[in-house]
């Protein structure tokens, strides 16, 4: 039996986390939560089977881009797909996310079915996606 892929949701707003949790759980994923970048890093460390990270950018304490950069720098999970999900998309930050190795940047609002489709694509196999592009 296939195990439901684990998705880590990082956002400082409880409401946003709950919404994403509902959407993704409903689509058959297991959801972990963290309320800032530093806790997000801890969750990845505690759960080596996390298949993907979905993170807000603007967060107090440690923002999403810093978390992304630390995550890629510590080298434990180099292929772990990270997706930024936030309200704005200023070009310099997009560039920074890309350089740091993020897989994508989604601007809210996003339709739940689009999100599920994207998360599914990134959790099934990175190799499949590379071929398709």
């Amino acid at each position, binding site marked *: 039996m296939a195990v439901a892929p684990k998705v880590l949701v990082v956002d400082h707003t409880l409401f946003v986390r709950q919404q994403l949790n509902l959407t993704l759980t409903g689509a058959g994923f297991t959801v972990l939560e963290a309320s800032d970048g530093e806790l997000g890093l801890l969750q990845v460390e505690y759960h080596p089977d996390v298949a993907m990270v979905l993170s807000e*950018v*603007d967060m107090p304490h440690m*923002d999403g*881009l810093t978390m992304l950069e630390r995550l890629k720098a510590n080298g434990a999970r180099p292929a772990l797909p990270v997706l930024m999900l936030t309200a704005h*998309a*200023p*070009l*310099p*930050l*997009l*560039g920074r*996310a*890309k350089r740091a190795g*993020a*897989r*994508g*940047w*989604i*601007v*809210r*609002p*996003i339709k739940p079915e*689009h999100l599920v489709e*994207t998360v599914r694509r990134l959790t099934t196999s*990175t190799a499949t*996606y*590379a071929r*398709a*592009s």
Partner: protein
Amino acid sequence: MYTVLLVDPSPTRDVLAERLELQGYRVVSTSDAAKGAHLALSAPPAIIIADLWMPGISGIQLCRLLRSEPATEHVPIILRGPEQSGRDRFWAERAGAIAYVGRGSMGDLVRALNQALAAAPPQADGFFTQLGGGELDLRERIAAQLDSALFDSVIASEIRALGVCGTFDRLFDTLSQFVVRVAGYRWLAVHSFQPERFAVHAHPAHRQAAEIEARAALRVCSDVPAMFVEDEDAADEATGSTPLFEAITMGADTLGTIAMGARAPVAGVHGAHEADLMRVIARELGGPIRIATLMEESNRLAMIDPLTGLLNRRAFIAAMERQIALLERHGEGFCLLLLDVDHFKNLNDQHGHATGDAVLMHLGVTLPACVRRSDVVGRWGGEEFVIALTIQDPTRAAARAETIRQAIANIVVRDSTGAPVEVTASIGVAAAEFGDSVEQLVERADKAMYAAKSAGRNNVTLHPGTPPALQARPAQVH
């Protein structure tokens, strides 16, 4: 299998798509430019083909947008337009299209496509962007991009206009006045390599700290003096974020460096605007710096007598006018020495003009060596030299003149036959007085010099003018 995104509102789109599929490409096609942009950003294809003329968003706009977006910055774009339009071709290239192909020839298009993909196989880093607000977000991004392009070209033209500043100092002052308005900073510094110059703009309260930070950022040695511009336009803040740094280039040469001590971030993530600004400035500043330093050099050359390396008559008069102004304002007196080489005409006739020139060149070295740095030495003309000594007391000035006379007498010059040439000079000394013009002062020194000549040459004569006591303390005369 490569994916081609085809954005084309014309009815020929489907025919084109079929042709490309025959070539072995996977084709995603749309008639709408906004939809095309969304498709390109959310799943970057291997290559994009777009038409130049589309309702709503033009091919040029689409091209510029996709070039600037990290998700599609490396995706090649081919634009299609009217067959023979040089203007469209120009703008397509400027917008970053890899090729411009006439609409009529499908063969040209297929060739351009194959060539582009062979030259630069797509990079599959898979980064994508999904914009939530649909076409609205897209229009905002196009508008923002247009704004930033306009901003860049305005900044660039402002920087280029600095070419008229004439001197490095003035250039830096004008530059800082302009940059501080566009981006508030704690300090701004420019380091030019040749000639080596270093300038800093900072708030007066943080002058020292700014200089230390700027020297560290630009790696400027402590023996290069800093030119300072201080005012309240610079932020009154002791700390900020890491300095931004750019090399100032012109063609293949690096002319210098520029650094900015940016202010501390206001909220979360920041600094992109300042970094962009610095890039534009560094790219454009090379020309104005080169012009300013060349003008400085040519001005300097216009002040120097080429034979002796001393100030020429015009520059010396200007220096004396400044000295006289200081005398009148602050009572800082000085003395003028007028020096004439003895029997110079005979020397020329006997030993040749080359020997005469050699004597003058020797004086160009000997005279500055006998005086302090604050004293001014010039060639008055022919074999006459002038020295403005920042000494108030004429008898002390005459003593210094005596030292100079002896130094001249010790000069060893040999003519073309190797025979030693005797060099002596007669020196007249006059003290500057209140209400003096340059002519009056020179005239007194000249009279004293003639007295020295009449007294048998090779000696020093002091003009019997105002009593030394009064000259020494001119402020009390008032």
